[in-house]
């Protein structure tokens, strides 16, 4: 108990957190600008007629034309976080707006959006505006050259959790023994300059698979150790630039490259800040001052941070509570740092019928965007949600208590496709829950490992 108290009272330089706050805010601002300029707000959140909400968050919906305002708030909040201006309000707004965006449609779920949300959540609890911020420049009493050590450590531990779980998720027979899905994905880029021709070789897929797995499992520890850190950081850059070149993962590689800076020592960040101050012509803060949580805040904050980490440790393991293969059922798949693990493609053709002999085979394109259709066709919870959309639609079209069936066919990691949903199940009678979906047909194959 005493060691914990002693640890909590330890303080460290505020510079790493300040640099992290600036870099993270800038990256998010760039992400929103990129998203906006690609026209994705319209194509992903305004054009679609239907959306796939997360279970329990059905009230989170796109706001029509105001969705632009939502992204505007998000961008502005990111800018304010970077500047350290009205920090607490800015970071709360950033967390809420970004998370809201992420929850609007499951089809756009990305692990890195979740990562960003979780980091925002953490930053709400951290005094990231005590140093190199507009807030501290305006208000001397906020200035802090030192902050509780736990504020830096919690970020490090979280990044470690992310990498290690991402690495563990790769410890499976498809990834390590069959080099799937990289074996499918890499030859698709064989027309790239320089490395293109190599990507046709199976050994390259194996090399990347094993390399990727070892990278994820080891990199946080090499980053933690002073002696290996510079090499590890070079590896971080090489690895993430390579993934950026090969896969459509947007800003994620760059966010991770920036995030890994948190592992560098205080002097490194203080140097960065000194250089930045020169650019902005602002004076170096003179006196050293230590930010301390008040006794109550200390208990509350450290408690909250600890709870956060415990939840983060537990959440990726929840798949163990479900029967069947997690890649197939996707029960417990999301929010678990399972990244780039599956080449999954599906075909889901719905038939709606009623007692009066009405029958229609649904053309998904009239209801869903290509992205939504692709995602829906491989994910049982989305199939179920869509079945209820169809039930409501055809009830309105005059079908009497419509029944909804699906002819599904899903291929996973180079296996031939097979039905994923029992074609005899009337999906209109099924409801969403955290329970196992009994109408998902068994995978009848074995992917060993995590």
């Amino acid at each position, binding site marked *: 108990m005493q060691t914990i108290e002693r640890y909590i009272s330890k303080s460290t330089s505020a510079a790493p957190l300040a640099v992290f706050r600036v870099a993270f805010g800038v990256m998010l601002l760039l992400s929103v600008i990129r998203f906006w300029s690609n026209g994705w707000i319209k194509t992903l959140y305004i054009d679609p007629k239907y959306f796939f909400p997360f279970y329990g968050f059905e009230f989170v919906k796109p706001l029509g034309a105001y969705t632009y305002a939502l992204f505007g708030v998000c961008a502005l909040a990111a800018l304010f976080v970077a500047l350290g201006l009205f920090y607490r309000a800015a970071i709360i707004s950033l967390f809420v707006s970004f998370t809201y965006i992420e929850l609007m449609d499951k089809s756009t779920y*990305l692990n890195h959006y979740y990562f960003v949300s979780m980091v925002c959540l953490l930053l709400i609890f951290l005094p990231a505006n005590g140093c190199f911020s507009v807030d501290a420049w305006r208000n001397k009493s906020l200035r802090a050259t030192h902050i509780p050590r736990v504020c830096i450590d919690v970020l490090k531990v979280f990044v470690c959790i992310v990498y290690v779980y991402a690495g563990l998720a790769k410890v499976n027979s498809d990834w390590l023994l069959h080099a799937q899905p990289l074996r499918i994905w890499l030859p698709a880029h064989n027309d790239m300059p320089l490395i293109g021709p190599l990507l046709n070789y199976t050994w390259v897929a194996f090399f990347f698979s094993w390399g990727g797995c070892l990278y994820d499992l080891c990199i946080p520890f090499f980053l933690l150790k002073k*002696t290996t850190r510079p090499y590890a950081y070079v590896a971080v850059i090489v690895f993430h630039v390579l993934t950026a070149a090969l896969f459509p993962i947007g800003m994620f590689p760059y966010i991770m490259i920036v995030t890994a800076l948190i592992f560098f020592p205080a002097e490194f960040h203080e140097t960065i800040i000194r250089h930045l101050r020169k650019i902005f012509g602002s004076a170096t803060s003179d006196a050293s001052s230590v930010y301390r949580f008040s006794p109550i805040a200390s208990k509350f904050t450290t408690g909250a941070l600890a709870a956060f980490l415990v939840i983060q440790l537990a959440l990726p393991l929840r798949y163990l509570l479900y029967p069947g293969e997690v890649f197939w059922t996707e029960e417990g798949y999301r929010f678990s740092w399972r990244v780039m693990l599956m080449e999954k493609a599906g075909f889901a053709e719905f038939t709606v019928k009623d007692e009066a002999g009405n029958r229609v085979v649904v053309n998904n394109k009239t209801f869903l965007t290509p992205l939504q259709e692709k995602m829906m066709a491989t994910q049982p919870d989305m199939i179920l949600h869509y079945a209820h959309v169809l039930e409501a639609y055809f009830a309105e079209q005059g079908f009497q208590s419509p029944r909804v069936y699906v002819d599904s066919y899903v291929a996973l990691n180079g296996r031939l496709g097979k039905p994923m949903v029992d074609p005899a199940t009337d999906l209109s009678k099924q409801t969403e829950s955290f329970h196992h979906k009994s109408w998902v047909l068994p995978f009848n194959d074995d992917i060993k490992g995590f």
Partner: protein
Amino acid sequence: MSFLNRKHIGLAGFIGLMGIVWACGSSDSGTDPVADPLDRKPMLEHWADNIIIPSYTNFKVKLDAMTAASDAFRANPTTTTLSDFRTAWVNAYTEWQKVEMFEVGPGDKYTIRNFFNIYPADEAGIAEYIANPTANMAVPAAYPRQGFPALDYLINGLAEADEDILVYYTTDASAAQRLAYVKRITDRMNDLLASVLGEWKGDYRETFVTKTGLDISSSTGLMVNAYALYYERFIRSGKFGIPSGALTSTGGTKHPEKVEAYYKRDISRTLAETAHQAAVNFFNGVSVLTAQEGPSFKSYLDALDAKDGSTGTALSAIIDAQFSVADAKIKTLSVDFYEQVQANNQAMLDTYAELQKAVRMLKVDMTSAMSVTITYTDNDGD
């Protein structure tokens, strides 16, 4: 040099290896025999030069012949010129089945299918357009008022007996306008085909063969998506699913009047067979010029070693086998699908079911094995 401990060396080695992988690409290592069939450029060249452009060229010959027969008919509507027109129409319609799937590049730009083969024909709409020579032919409502289905109605469907049909083009009050509308239709078909073929023979061919990626704007990506969509929506649904009621039925009724070439009746199977065979040939890369197989979906899938893990059977062989089963089912049907739906719809439904199996393989197994993307948006692995 105390910092050079073993961990360092291991890590430096790891980084170095990645560097070597990076660097190796620059040296010419493409001589491996496995690598060649995975080069998509020869496949795109083969598609463009030996399949797509020759198919459009062949179709142009038949469309020209149909236009000539149509002109002869318009100059002098008799039972002989009507009969010649019909024959030329059947030939052109059949040849069309070999190009309808190429809705990529110019075909997609001009959405040529919309103006050539949207059926059933809109009889009332056609009457309206005959009366109004300046009506807009480009709007969606105009799709079923032109192309082969409209001609089908105009030369086969106006009446039972030929003499009665001829009345519409000779003594009828709007005979001249009707003849003018036939010309409007054939002119439009010729113009559209000229645009599409012209672009293929012009700059687009080069664009097509240089977009060698597999993303959504790449030629292979576009082709895979267009091909699978065509097989699903225009062979399976259009020719079988809709008329048989497999796709829609209201109170249990089917839709025999929605068969292709509804007024001519006895060529619906020929059209379907031709379309299916063209799709099979394209899958196997059969050259329209030499009838020899070249680089194709099949050779590409084989080079990827796409197969059924449990039996070792190649995916391409599984797909070809399913094509054969579907083709055999089509061949058991009546030449007249209208009659088939009425007499024994189960045979139509059985054919539909076999086509459906092929659709799944094309849309899921083939697309997944080839790693074709369908959107520009970020994705971190499904």
